């Protein structure tokens, strides 16, 4: 059974271009032009993933996201425009998994979609190897090229959260509530400085991060460098 994707956008050209490309990539596609229509279609035939434009006539993308999250655990990828960080953050907080900014490249969209469709990895293996990094969950030890790194407990929890969500966008709110607790979820003020400290320990060149990428104004994403 192939993976079903529901594409929601009020621009016919974008629906068409996305439909063609996604079909070419092996997905089964359904389209909707309004949020209301999308919710009906998602109820009738639950999709595995939803690609959702934030700007829609009638019901907004953020509202669709919130409604959908009430009864569906489909991966949601939102489409937004440059500079509209607050709307993006609202959609992510309403349950979207990730976003791409218009105009986006197809490669980027497909990569984000794949990552969103993949669920967070359960912590099965005691030791996780990613690039030059090696994380030992049992012993709470992190090595870079075999060399032991000195991480504070918060830094370790931060890194563990990132490592278990490779390729996924984690919003400031999500990171803060997972690592520091729900009471801290709006205290993004100091988060950047903590991430910066973690980077100095795990990145070979902290000014050109390869593992821990900033999505300015939205959150962070942990990736495994290609080579």
């Amino acid at each position, binding site marked *: 059974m192939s993976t079903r994707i529901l594409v929601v956008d009020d621009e016919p050209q974008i629906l068409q271009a996305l439909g063609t490309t996604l079909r070419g990539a092996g997905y089964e596609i359904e389209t909707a032009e309004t949020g209301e229509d999308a919710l009906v279609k998602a109820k009738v035939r639950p999709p595995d993933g939803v690609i959702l434009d934030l700007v829609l006539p009638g019901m907004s993308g953020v509202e669709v996201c919130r409604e959908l999250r009430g009864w569906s655990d489909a991966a949601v990828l939102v489409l937004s425009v*440059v*500079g509209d*960080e607050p709307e993006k953050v609202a959609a992510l907080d309403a349950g979207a998994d990730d976003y791409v900014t218009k*105009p986006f490249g197809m490669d980027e969209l497909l990569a984000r979609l794949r990552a969103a469709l993949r669920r967070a990895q359960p912590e099965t293996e005691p030791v996780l190897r990613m690039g030059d990094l090696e994380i030992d969950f049992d012993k709470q030890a992190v090595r870079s090229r075999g060399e032991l790194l000195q991480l504070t407990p918060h830094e370790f929890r931060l890194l563990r959260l990132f490592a278990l969500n490779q390729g996924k966008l984690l919003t400031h709110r999500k990171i803060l509530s997972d690592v520091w607790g729900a009471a801290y979820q709006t205290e*993004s*003020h*100091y988060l*950047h*400085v903590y*991430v*910066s400290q973690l*980077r*100095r320990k795990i990145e070979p060149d*902290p*000014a*050109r*991060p390869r593992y821990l*990428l*900033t999505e*300015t*104004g939205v959150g962070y994403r942990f990736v495994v460098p290609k080579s």
Partner: protein
Amino acid sequence: MNSVDIRFKRQSVALVASAAAVALVTGAIFALDSFAPVLSLGVLYVFAVLPIAVVFGLAYALLVSVASMLAFNWFFLAPTHTFRLSDGENWIALAVYLVTALVVSALAARSRAREAEAERRAHEATLLAGVAGSLLESDHVQNELRGISARVAEALGVERARIELDSVRRPEPGESALELRAGERGIGRLFVDSQPDPEVAESVTTSLASLLAVALDRERLGRRAVEAEALRRSDAIKTAILRAVSHDLRSPLTAIRTATEGLESTSLELSESDRAELLATIDTETRRLDHLVANLLDLSRLELGAAEPKPELWTVETLVGQALSELGARAERVDVELAPDLGPVEVDGVQIERVLVNLIDNALKFSPDAPVDVVGEQQNGAVAVRIVDHGPGLSDGELERVFEPFEQGRVPSRGSGLGLAIAKGFAQANGARLEAESPKSGGATFVLLLPSTR
């Protein structure tokens, strides 16, 4: 407490003090009676008259003088316990005392009044200096009225004062209104909760009204100048945006259309490499359009004042790193050198990232073959980030104009000349400073001073 109560209380205090003064001196004369001829002791009543004249004024001094003479006559001059005098000479002595007392008290009261006047003038001068100062420092007279009212209340000796500009409101019960007029021009009204001394009130309101008149005029002129400047600027921006839309948007569109038609054409014989080149053109030109639209959006957001920064703590390393990753492969030519002790900066990460991207992008454009240096160091309570290129540098005239929108500068380029204007705008919105330098050693240097929390 209202003014009638205050006046009544003051009168009672003065009467009691006067009576006490006379009684005290009378007592003293009784005590000294056995040591000196009583007639020579009458002069001691001056010590009752003088303090009363100084503290309560001439009227009470007169009262004390007369009361003293009567008391002296009654208690000490034969026949005692009558107001009659057996010795005719004593009449002369009494008259001399009375005249002396009157002259002394008149002099004392006058010097006291002068001193009070000088004190009042000094108070008034302090008040007016304070008012003038706060009006000069502020662009909005209205915002200063509360502070000025408090000072005026203090100067008038009333509990509450309230200035209302252009007001014709009638005073409410328990309140009185003083007109503020500068010459013929009505400025407004001063409402006070009790009746102040009319002389003080007159001089304070006159000076206050003329100060307010000057400040209001200044505010009006200033506003007009700002409006004119905004209009001029927005005209220049509109023209420039039209130019950008017509030229800078059309040329990539033309290139894309030519390329797609070339690819679709059946009459053309294209090799594999030709097709690849046309596809690459479409890709490049689309990115260029995207970049231009983003810049136009940023600029209009800045022009509209809609770029409200959301300050958070960031390390410069993160911001520079983010800018470099945004620039992609071109950023490989950038050498980053950040001092290890850089404190975090409190800025809007998204906006400062735009500033850095635009500055580094500009530097890369103007030194196409040489490396670009990004150097960060702590500098007098700020973090200075220098973006150094090895291009042709800037002339003095260019140094001045380089941050103006649509200023192309130096060699003709493919940019729209918006990047540096946007960088400057976002820097200012974040309380950061952005300056251009053209060192003798060559190239151009842009210095971004970010507010440090250290």
